[in-house]
Structure formats: structure tokens, C-alpha cells
């Protein structure tokens, strides 16, 4: 990784304004969409997760987002995929009778192992795409309001839905901030000979090189959190007795959209268990 830009590889926590049908959905619908894409990504069979990934990318296209933008969060994870592939290659599975695709002396890559690697990668791709899509079309405020709406029934039973929603949105808000801080500190240390982005050294040397980052980044993040908390307090935030200014008009065909999302989720699970790849 030559470039030291972390925010460039960040696909979550970056809202991109737009006026597509995807953007216009109410926050609760967007949460439903996230759930309907993420569930098969995590738990459905290969065909189902491929379907979920395709749907996430298609919705992204409808929202004006390029697949590369949704999936760029995976770039830093690519070396780990390579590592898993190598581990699969080096160690065999007991009772693995599948054909050998590649062999090198005693070690071999079998079809079974290749499938494991591909499915693991597919899950990451589908999950990152689903989260990237959700955060690219939802503002933090929408996420908070959506979470509040989704949890409204529980709130009536005394569940602290509003506070949870605020905590969640603040966390989302801080993802790009912390990435920015990390970037600044990495650049400061790299300027002083810190070994980042020069592609040298083994994994332990790399991990050690990152030690000078943790303390400053944590402190900077905490300072910013404190500044934000103070600013909120100065504007009378207590978490109670709030009203809501934002309004989310119900878009046309909302019921159909929600039904389609649920159906696609069911279809993904069905495909995953019926279609064996």
C-alpha cells in the first residue's frame, strides 16, 4: 500500500447526497434494506450471497454509486484474503476428497478449499457492499431517526431507543473523523522515518511500526469527542424531551419496495439452499 490515504479506502460513514429513488426511501425502509442484504450475505449459501451482492450493486447503481466506490473498503483487506488462501493451500482438510487443482510437493489446493476461500471473500464483498450502500444513501440524522423509528415499539416498553440511536449515529459520524486523524498522524510519523506505505518489513515489523499511531489517534479522537459533547451540551442537549424537525414524506410505492426487499431476502436464502454451487 503506497498511498497513505485511509479515507480513500473507507466506504462506510460517507454519505453522498443524491435524489435517487433509493435516497428518497424513508430511513426505516433503508434499515430494512440493510437487513435484507446483510442477512443473506452472512448466512445464505453461495448462490444466495451472490444474489445479495448483485442486488446491493444494482441498488447502488440506481443510487448513482459505482461498484468500485461501494467496495473500496475492501482494499486494505485484500492481503488478508491472500493470506487465507495461502493457509488453505498449506493445510488440508480431513476427509477432503475433492479434486486437486494445484499441487506443489506435499501441499495442494483442492476444489473444496478454493470454494471456502471464494465464499469467505464473497461474504465480505456482499457485506461491505450492503453497508457501503446503506451509509452512502443515509445521512447520520436519517440513521438516527430510522433507528428510533425501528425501535419505537421497544421504546414504548422503556427501551432507551433515542439514546441508542444517538450513540450509533455519533459512532458513524466518527468513522471518517478518526480515519482523517489516523491519516494525519501516519503522515507525521512517516515524515520522521516511520515505516508506513513503503512496503518494507514483515508483518511483525509492520505491526510495530503502527504502535506510534495508537496513542495520538486515540487522544485526538477523544478530544474531538469531547469538543462535540460540549457543543451539544451548550445547545441544551439532554437526550430528553426532544422534538423532531426533519420530516420524511412517504415515497410512492413504499409498501411495494418493502415487500420486494423482504421477498429478495427470502429468495436469496432459498436460492442459497436449493442451488448448490
Amino acid at each position, binding site marked *: 500500500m503506497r498511498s497513505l490515504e485511509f479515507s480513500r479506502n473507507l466506504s462506510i460513514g460517507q454519505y453522498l447526497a443524491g435524489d435517487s429513488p433509493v435516497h428518497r426511501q424513508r430511513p426505516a425502509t433503508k434499515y430494512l434494506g440493510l437487513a435484507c442484504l446483510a442477512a443473506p450475505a452472512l448466512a445464505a449459501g453461495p448462490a444466495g450471497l451472490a444474489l445479495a451482492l448483485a442486488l446491493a450493486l444494482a441498488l447502488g447503481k440506481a443510487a448513482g454509486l459505482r461498484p468500485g466506490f461501494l467496495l473500496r473498503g475492501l482494499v486494505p483487506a485484500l492481503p488478508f484474503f491472500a493470506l487465507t488462501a495461502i493457509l488453505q493451500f498449506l493445510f488440508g482438510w480431513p476427509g477432503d476428497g475433492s479434486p486437486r487443482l494445484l499441487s506443489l510437493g506435499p501441499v495442494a489446493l483442492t476444489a473444496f478449499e478454493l470454494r471456502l476461500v471464494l465464499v469467505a471473500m464473497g461474504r465480505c464483498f456482499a457485506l461491505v457492499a450492503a453497508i457501503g450502500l446503506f451509509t452512502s444513501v443515509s*445521512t447520520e440524522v436519517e440513521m438516527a431517526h430510522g433507528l428510533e423509528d425501528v425501535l419505537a415499539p421497544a421504546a414504548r416498553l422503556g427501551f432507551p431507543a433515542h439514546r441508542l440511536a444517538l450513540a450509533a449515529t455519533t459512532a458513524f459520524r466518527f468513522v471518517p473523523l478518526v480515519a482523517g486523524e489516523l491519516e494525519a498522524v501516519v503522515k507525521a510519523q512517516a*515524515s520522521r522515518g516511520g515505516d508506513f506505505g513503503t512496503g518494507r518489513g514483515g508483518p511483525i515489523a509492520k505491526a510495530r511500526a503502527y504502535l506510534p499511531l495508537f496513542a495520538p489517534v486515540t487522544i485526538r479522537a477523544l478530544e474531538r469527542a469531547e469538543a462535540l459533547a*460540549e457543543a451539544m451540551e451548550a445547545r*441544551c442537549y439532554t437526550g430528553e424531551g426532544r422534538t423532531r424537525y426533519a420530516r420524511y414524506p412517504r415515497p410512492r410505492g413504499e409498501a411495494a419496495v418493502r415487500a420486494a426487499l423482504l421477498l429478495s431476502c427470502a429468495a436469496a436464502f432459498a436460492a442459497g439452499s436449493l442451488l448448490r454451487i
Partner: protein
Amino acid sequence: MPLIELESASFSYEGQDRPALDRVSLAIGEGEYVALVGPNGSGKSSLLRLMAGLRRPSSGSVRVAGLDASAAANARALRSVLGLVFQSPADQIVSTVAEEDVAFGPENLGLPRAEIGRRVDAALAAVGLEAERRRSPRFLSPGQQQRLAIAGALAMEGRFIGFDEATAMLDPAGRASILAAMDGLSARGVGLLHVTHDLEEAARADRVLALDRGRLAFDGSPAELLRAAPGLGLSLPPSAAIARACGLEPEPGEGAASLAGRIRRSMKSRNASSSAAPAAGAAPRRLGPEPAFRVEEASFSYLAGGADGRPALDGATLSLPRGASVALVGRTGSGKSSLLQLLDALAFPSAGRVLSLGVDTLSREADLRALRTRAPLSIQRPESALFEFYAGDDVAYGPRNLGLAGKELAARVRAAMDSVGLPYEEFRDRPSRSLSGGEARRLALAGVLALEPEALLLDEPTSSLDPAAREAVLALVETQRSSGRTLAFATHSMEEAASADLVAVLAAGRVAACAPPRELFYEAYDEAWGLARPYACELALALGGRVLEARPLNAAEVAAALRAGGGRA
């Protein structure tokens, strides 16, 4: 009855022996426009926080609109009266839609939606942001973000707004827009307390308070403050420094035209003097022909590939001679930081190329680690990247990465710490976090100097420092310059830029001009850059004649030009 009343109020931070505020008594009336000045650590922010009930006095009392500010039960009522605007634009914006951010306060008060809407409309109109209401604050300029924060405070419909160094992080144009917004609020009868280091800004208020080590050291008019400033550890703004250098009494916030008039009158009445001082301005230094850095048609954008990937640099071309000091100026977002990062190979051009100390940063053979340490970049607020517990260890990080150890390493660290005015023996075992803001900044610079680099890249080295710390950093930069090191620094201060060998103006991702400061500010200057000229330059233009011919860039040069002119402007 005054709106804000402090009676012998003291406040201490936990674990600090000296109180941040020490028995401060003062009263501020309804609708007053007050400025609060003082060095870092003098208690300005603490005072503002006591007033807003964000901190409680350890003794004494604070009353706002008749309410005891230390009672938790009064918090809501108090903060509806007194709003705050903080220093960092990004850290006080809660929402991702401008109008919803303005609505945050009224929502917290539990107001009905229609009333919130009315307040949001009025507040956005008052700061001129109606057109941006649906935009994400992220895409507003820092000046606009600060105006949004003002709108957020206005929507509380309070009677008083405190500004905690709210202009410190802005470029000249952003600063001017905030100051104008403040004048507008004052005209509408909203009371203001403006915390600032800049006496030129403070002079806009009707009354100035100065704190010194927690005590109220001054309470009077801006004119009186200029007379008292030297004794309060405050540095004079350029206009006052020039007036004084010309033997005139400084007047608060005086424009160049008015000062020029006074100078002409005083010259007439004075006997044409005999002193034949040499013409103003040192001769420009000879610079080596071979460039230390060359940027050729370089482009660079953040979030490339994203829908909002805007170019930070768009075909910038620049050549920096070896041994020169170059000031990079330009509005926020004009590409100064990006350019410095390209020079240090911390970022790479998407088009064009960058030759840094003779190395093409995109070349596969380039040893980036070596290159970065030969021309290190000190980022904005570099002190926040300090990570070792002890000051000496932090300075040692760089040379240790270069492979130094033992005596050689200790000698490097000693030399670097001594050169920034943090004597090695005294400071090496001090915890980094215990240093003051100015000391920490200098320690961070020592960490870069310890690399004994060929060139230094500094991103806003004096930002957010008080005048004393600023002077110390500028002196340090001057030492580096005179030692022949190539130096590039970004700054929002035209006074600082005028001290460099070359000034490069960035506008919309391109280098709009690069010339020696005298040439740049007197001949090539273009209003479209959105910058300002140094005050000395404005004054010379207003005076014309001999002074203008001398093209002075600072107070001493103006005074010398006047003397050389035999008393005729």
C-alpha cells in the same frame, strides 16, 4: 441589571496547582460587544465555560440573566440565553444537513415543529446561508461552517453569544465573513463576547477584557488596550505596530487610508529631518539555480473514484529553488496542504509529476522513506502526533529511524531541542503532555529538525498559537532559513508570507502566481485570489510617492522609507 455578573469567581482544573481563573469579578450588560484577550492558558476559555454553565466555579459566583450559572437545574434556561460558537468548525456540527443542524438546539428545547421551522429560517437568513440549507456541512467552506454554528446559536433566540476563538482556524476571507456576521448580530442587539488573540479583531468591540494568568488584568476601551498591550504580554496588531514605528499613537482597528492621512499630517508639521537612512528592504537573497522541488502539471484529488472526488490540485506547476524559503498562501481548500504532501511523497500526483530533491516521487526506484526524512513535513497541529511519554524520546524517534544510536543519537536530540528553545537538560525528561501549547509545537518541530533534513515543509506552523508562541516559532523558522535550508510553509498570515523569499499563491488547485513578496503584493496582486495584502503594503499604496517606491513589507521598512524620504511621504 447586568446580563452576566461574576463575583470573585475562581476555577481550577483537577490536578493543576495554579487556578485557571483567580477571583474574577466583572459585569457585562445587555447587548454589549465585548472582546476577551490574553495569552494561551490565561483562562479565556474557562471564563466562557463558566458563563455557559459548562464548568462550575470552585468559589465565587456566576450569574447570567439573574440565574445562578452553577446550578444544574438552571442549565437549560441559561444556555437558551447564552449560546456558544467554538473554535473548530467541524467539531460543533451535529447534523449532516445544514438546516437540521440549526434545528438541533430548538429540538432539544422540545419546541413544536412549526416554531422550529420559523427559527431555522430566521437564523439561516441572518448569516446568509439560506441557499445552503439542504447541503451537507461537510461541503461548506470553514467560514460557512462557522456561520452555520452561529445560526445554531441564534436559533436558540438567546440574548448573548460567546465566540471561543471562532476565527482562529479560518482564512482571511472566512474570518472577514464571521466578523461581518458578528457586527450584524451586534446591530440587532445581541450581546457578544469574542475571545481572540488578534487585537485587530478585538478592536471591533466596544470594550475589551484581558486576562493574565487567571486574573482580570485589563478592562477598558480598545484604544486604552493598545496603550496597555506591551505590559500585558500582548503583541500589537500590524496597524498599531506601524503607527508606533512612525512615531504616532496607535488607534484601534485603523484602516490604511486613515493611518496614511495621519502620517501625511504629522510629516507636514514635523521638520524635514536630515537622517538619510538607506532605502527600505534588504536585497533579495541569491538563490541557487537548481530547484529543490519541481511540481509539473500535478493533479491530485481526495476520494478519487467517489462521486464527490473533487480535485485538491488541478495541474499545479511550481519550482522551488534550493535554499529558498517559500510561503504557500491561498484560501482554505486551495490545495496548500496537498501540495506539501506531494512534495514529501506522502501523497502522489494522479497526473503530472513531482520532483522532490531530484527524485521523481512516482518512480518505482524512489526510496520513499529516505526521501521523506530528507524533506520532512510537519503537519498542521503537529504536537497532536507526539506519542512518546518523555519529550526527549519523542524527538529521538526520527533519528532512531535513521539508524542512529548512543552518543550520536543523544547529540542529535540535544542539538534539535536546544535549537527550538527547549533546553535538552531541562526538557528531555518532561512528559510531552505536560508542555504548554507553544512548547509542544516547538517540541514537534524539534522532532523534525533532529533528522537534519535538507528541506523543511511546514503546514501552518503558527496556526492557533498565541502571539508569544507564534513569535518563538517564527524565530525558529527564520533561523532555519538563514542556515540555508530550503523551506516551504503554508500560512494564512500575509505578514508571515511577506518575510519569505518567494510567495506562491494557490487558487482553485493551481499555482496562480509565484514571485518574491515585493513583486507579488505590489505588482502581481489579484483580488480574485481572495487574500489580503500585508498592512504595510496597503499603507504604502494609500501613501503613494516615495514610500510606495520603496515597496515596504513591514513596519520597519515603512518607517525607513519615511525617514529616507526626508519627511515627505
